């Protein structure tokens, strides 16, 4: 499925994430990069998409005459409605999220720590205008919060880190990171004596190369 020796493209990464979403799951794909995952959800698996602005059963992006300004996703992109959809108000929508009813939420990130802390809402730049939207609710609300990101910044700095330097979105909320270089489990679910970050799979790098790139000691998810 994955070309050996190569990092994953965005689309390959989206497909890799999609593969792990259980049949019948209720899923929130945040905004931006993770929304690509929806293109790779196979039909017939009964996966239902939640968008926190108030809808279950969201369909693909709308085009042409299907564009309806009253029907948008959390990124304010016009979308469509699938059979069996439902609409609800913001308090009900975030109750659904906060109450642990969404099986999987996939989010982008600036940084994720080995203990599962997430930073994805603020660059910390002093002159930036802050905006958080539903990021903090999504981070802590779903049964499983996955991050989908490039493992390194454009400048080559690791985004999977010992401790986040940027303002946090949530504490110990991420369970798994899907990246172009590796899939890594993070967070407090590791057993005693185990590493907080455990590599599930690498793409075009060895375990040792990955440790070097990140400057972290990494465990292995299978033991």
């Amino acid at each position, binding site marked *: 499925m994955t070309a050996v020796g190569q990092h994953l493209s965005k689309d390959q990464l989206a497909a890799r994430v999609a593969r792990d979403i259980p049949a019948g799951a209720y899923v929130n794909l*945040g*905004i*931006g*990069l*993770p929304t690509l995952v929806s293109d790779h959800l196979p039909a017939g698996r009964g996966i239902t998409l939640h*968008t*926190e*602005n*108030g*809808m279950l059963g969201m369909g693909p992006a709308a085009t042409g005459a299907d564009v*309806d*300004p*009253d*029907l*948008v*996703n*959390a*990124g*304010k*992109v016009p979308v469509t*409605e699938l059979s069996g959809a439902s*609409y*609800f*108000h*913001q*308090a009900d*929508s*975030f*109750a659904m*999220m*906060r109450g642990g009813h969404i099986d999987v939420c996939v989010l*982008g*990130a*600036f940084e994720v720590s080995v203990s599962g*802390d997430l930073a*994805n*809402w*603020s*660059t910390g730049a002093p*002159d*930036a*205008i*802050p*905006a*958080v*939207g*539903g*990021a*903090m*609710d999504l981070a*802590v*609300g779903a049964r499983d919060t996955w991050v*989908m*990101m*490039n493992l390194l910044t454009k400048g080559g700095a690791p985004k999977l880190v010992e401790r986040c330097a940027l*303002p*946090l*979105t*949530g*504490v110990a909320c991420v369970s798994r990171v899907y990246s172009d270089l590796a899939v890594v489990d993070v967070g407090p679910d590791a057993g005693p004596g185990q590493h907080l970050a455990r590599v599930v799979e690498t793409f075009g790098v060895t375990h040792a190369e990955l440790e070097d790139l990140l400057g972290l000691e990494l465990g292995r998810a299978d033991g």
Partner: protein
Amino acid sequence: MTRISETALEALGEIPDGSTVMIGGFGSAGQPVELIDALVEAGPTGLTVVSNNAGNGDLGLAHLVELGRIRKIVCSFPRQADSWHFDAKYRAGEIELELVPQGNLAERIRAAGAGIGAFYTPTGYGTPLAEGKETREIDGKNYVLEYPIHADVALVKAHRADTAGNLVYRKTARNFGPIMAAAARRTVVQVSEVVPAGSIDPEAVVTPGIYVDTVVAVGGSTALRQGTGEATWQEVAG
């Protein structure tokens, strides 16, 4: 009892300077543009506005921001690709911002309408947005104490009202309408059409008329007039 008004300005009624105004909508979807235009015309200033965003493009909430009528905005997502009027005011130090995670914003508005004094939410715990707030561990999980957000008036866009004030919405334009209608002392609603009481299925009413003080019909959807407000922050984060 709900009053049906002929014009948005009449529906709006008196809004003194310094009022707290809730404005429905998620970006353009559900934004009550005609009521905001009336608010611009009515002229009050020094407003505190509670809304998910801080305006898209040049119309509606963005226009109100541009005119400097807003002293403070309580919202979750002010910065967007087309929030230039807010950006300018904010950088100039001419508008105060209270940034609230979207779900906490929704729940705080809901709490105001529901008579809840305060509640413990997990959202924001351990983040800068919970700094200085009371926290508590309950059953091994950490929570932040949040208080209700009340308002003097709510401006809401719905799809259809009956003459008893019952409302139905359209798709994701429902968003903050139902909870803002319940949280404000006075609620003004713009709809596409007003129908006789009994025309809306009682099982399908989303906002019961008890929450609606005034309704005005403004014709078809207006969201197309505005910018799209597509979010950009996660493009960076992705």
